[in-house]
């Protein structure tokens, strides 16, 4: 070094040499190619209670695929990001996954508002998203595969069950949800459905609470007074950790399932883990999978999951459970892997063509098929009652998988729309085919 203290020529040469070494080293390290898989789930905030398990089961499935040799000779590498229940951050993270990390596919989102936030990103950058959660329908995107239930695979059968003699013969309904697009659209569909069953607006009470709301005293009290007289049922589309104080308030105010059954669409085994379920016995949920289903495939799936939890020392240990969105994530990942093998590449356009018609043997015992036309799964419907141990007892089920109706026939506007990505329609929401023969 010369006397002024500034780095001299020798230093510059040394630094330059080190930089070259570093680049050479990193490129040789990168020669071990992997296929990147994006995982876009909230790991903090109000939705963390539901979404963290989806991240865990995605990592488990990636590990399983890697143990069997990976895909196309390469290992799968998970890229986990945390959008923290912040909807605009979901879009930012989705862009980061596609542009920066160059993921081949993303498994993510829970709330419909998060999905709506990332939709423009996936459509603009031609990415691929697998969405594993039950939702309100009214959507079918070229870039999304929906492995969760559409309203006709969850909400409508649940309401029909509640109206049946076995379900209590409900003639009055309380539509209670969190204030965002999924509950609002689902309740619009359900209201139209109830009108076709001759249940008028006077017998329907619709009310919403914000995300993270914790004070359900007046609402439960209102439900009780609304229910006086006619057999009433509550249809809950509350999402996230608000479910915990809601169920606690039901228990505290003595609202029994034999009087006013509450059917929830976003509450599964995972959300019940943090609640004392003894006062909630008899309340219901509608899903396409329950951990309590007795099939050899489900026992194998649960065993795999428990082994994974133990191996990685996940918080909760033995108390960890499986649920419908976890099963949907698993099915989606297996389907994507099969499609990649069939297409011989991870290129989005090729894989997209190969995913339709894919069939996966699901833990529920059925062969679950991806509908090639509307990008939704054929799913069986189960309705279960909460048990004291936090599991569900199936009280009603369909004989086999049911096709999804992406556009609800109960809303006049959407009844005309068709979602069909095959020739000649090639559109997600049109009333006439794009290509006329």
């Amino acid at each position, binding site marked *: 070094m010369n006397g002024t203290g500034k780095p001299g020529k020798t230093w510059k040469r040394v630094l330059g040499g080190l930089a070259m070494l570093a680049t050479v080293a990193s490129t040789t390290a990168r020669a071990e190619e992997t296929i990147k898989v994006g995982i876009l789930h909230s*790991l*903090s*905030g*109000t939705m*963390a*209670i539901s979404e*963290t398990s989806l991240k865990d089961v995605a990592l488990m499935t990636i590990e399983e695929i890697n143990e069997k040799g990976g895909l196309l000779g390469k290992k799968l590498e998970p890229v986990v990001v*945390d959008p923290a229940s912040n909807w605009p951050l979901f879009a930012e993270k989705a862009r980061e996954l596609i542009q920066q990390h160059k993921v081949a596919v993303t498994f993510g989102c829970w709330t419909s508002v998060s999905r709506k936030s990332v939709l423009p990103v996936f459509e603009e950058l031609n990415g691929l998203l697998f969405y594993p959660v039950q939702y309100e329908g009214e959507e079918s995107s070229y870039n999304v595969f929906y492995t969760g239930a559409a309203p006709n695979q969850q909400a409508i059968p649940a309401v029909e069950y509640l109206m049946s*003699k*076995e*379900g*209590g013969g409900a003639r009055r309904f309380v539509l209670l949800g969190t*204030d965002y697009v999924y509950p609002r659209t689902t309740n619009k569909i359900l209201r139209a459905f109830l009108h076709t069953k001759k249940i008028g607006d006077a017998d329907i009470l619709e*009310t*919403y*609470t*914000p995300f*993270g*709301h*914790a*004070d359900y*005293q*007046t*609402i439960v*009290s*209102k439900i*009780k*007074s609304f229910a*006086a*007289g*006619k057999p009433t049922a509550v249809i809950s589309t509350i999402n996230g*950790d608000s479910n*915990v*104080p809601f169920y*606690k*308030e039901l*228990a*505290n*105010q*003595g609202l029994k*399932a*034999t009087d006013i*059954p509450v059917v929830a669409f976003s509450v599964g085994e995972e959300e019940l*883990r*943090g609640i*004392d379920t003894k*006062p909630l016995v*008899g309340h*219901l949920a509608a899903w396409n999978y329950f951990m309590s289903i007795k099939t050899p495939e489900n026992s194998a799936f649960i065993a795999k999951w428990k082994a994974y939890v133990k191996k990685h020392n996940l*918080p909760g240990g033995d108390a960890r459970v499986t649920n419908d969105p976890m099963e949907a994530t698993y099915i989606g990942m297996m389907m994507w892997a099969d499609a990649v093998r069939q297409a011989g590449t991870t290129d989005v356009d090729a894989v997209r063509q190969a995913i339709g018609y894919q069939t996966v043997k699901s833990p529920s015992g059925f062969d679950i098929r991806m509908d090639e036309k509307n990008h939704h799964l054929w799913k069986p419907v189960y309705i279960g*009652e909460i*048990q*004291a141990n936090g599991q569900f*007892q199936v*009280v009603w089920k369909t004989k086999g998988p049911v096709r999804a109706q992406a556009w609800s026939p109960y809303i006049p506007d959407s009844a005309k729309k068709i979602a069909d990505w095959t020739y000649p329609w090639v559109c997600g929401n049109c009333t006439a085919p794009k290509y006329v023969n």
Partner: protein
Amino acid sequence: MSSRMNPVAARLFAAVVCLLSLLPGAEAADLRPLLKQLASDERSAVVEAVEALGNSGDPLALSILEALQGGTLRLTPAGRALIASDTGSPLQELGSGKAAAADPTALVTPLVSNQVRRAIEPAIAQLQLVSPDGATRLKAARELARRAGPEDAALMRAVLARETEPEIRLALESALARLDLTNPDRDLRLQAIRRIQAQGDIQLKSELVRLTAAKEDGAFAEPDAEVRAAAAAAIHAIDRRQTLVGLVANLLYGLSLGSVLLLAALGLAITFGQMGIINMAHGEMLMLGAYTAYAIQNFVRSALPGLFDYYLVPALPAAFLVCALVGIALERSILRFLYGRPLESLLATWGISLVIIQVVRLVFGAQNVTVANPSWLSGGYAAAPGLVLPYSRVAIVLLGAIVVALVWLLLQRTSLGLQIRAVTQNRPMAASMGVRTAWVDTLTFALGSGVAGIGGVALSQLGNVGPELGQSYIVDSFMVVVLGGVGNIGGAIAGAMGLGIVAKYLEPFTDAVLAKIFLLLFIILFIQKRPQGLFALKGRAAEG
């Protein structure tokens, strides 16, 4: 008995049956076919068996139904009933309690769904109506008042004839009144309506409405005009009573929300008033208090499981201490240098809150943690039909009152309190009187943070405990302090209770989201008119 049996054989058969019924264990034999039916796969068959058991009048049937309701009933293929226990003790024979050996794989657990439960509850009530215990009979009478059908009328009248307890008579009379509404005798119908009006039971209002309704051809369901008029009057009376109950209920809910807000905001009122520091980390003090309750809960559960129900007793002082210590650390290290600089203190405390949240995430995980309610805080007290007061909320109102009383005592009756009030009113004068203002500031901040810690323990009993718990209460705390006036407890109480009650009265009309918006608008407008809040401190230095 077959009609083809000749009379002698029939009498012989009857005699044999009577003899058999004298043998021990023979009662179960009568119920054996019903037990076999309980094991059926068809839910409607199970419901039939449950109803038949209810009508049997057999005390053993009561044990069977109670076990079925509790999920502990197991049936052997031969039709024997066994009780399983969830604590792992061996299977017991029903009725005798003797240990029974049975092949666990052959045991059938009967299907119980809501449909079956709806049949079990009145069946149990029927059997319990003849129990020797008064409390059991009362519960049974109330259950029958809700769900009895005409077939139960004879049983209820028989029990009423020899029942002496007034509460049970009342319940049975209202049950019979409901059935009497369709009695052909007009006077009985009038009597039934008057009884329903006196009871004010909202469940029966729909029956009355049905009486006054008109059928399609214009004729009324109830032919007699006087009876119809009586029914309409009864409906009005019940409605008025329900409105009154609703008003009282909202007041009580408002008080409970207000006490939650009070516990959250009291600490802030003290620190904001004392030092003029806008403490954005105040919510995190609530969160730390809640996590302290969680830690104490875990400790008690593992070290002293028998005392789990009382874990709140050490949790409250522990939370106070933890948060007070964190407050002292914060004040001594950072906030001390920021007095009189509101913008810097706002930014600094905001940054501190983010750091605290992240530290908690690293230590406890990003997800919510479960804080279980002790058994004496679960459930509620049914004060009136349609008004249930959850014990947890009542406890929080009491806790709020106690904390306010203690803080008031501290401020008014101790020398530390005297010094705090002096420094709040006129800092330079207090300093020149020999009060060590820096030390008083530290202790005040510790007090405010400690009170927030206690508020956090209360919050842990009501809702979720996660790292972001404080974020949802910081805005509400500032609203209370701004509304109530800075620096005094009376203002905090008025602000908290006012906001709580107004919010709860708005909610039934406007939904939770709009209610919050209206409250914020109201506070903004109020501040325009009266910037110092409801109860403001007077004096030159206070306004300076």
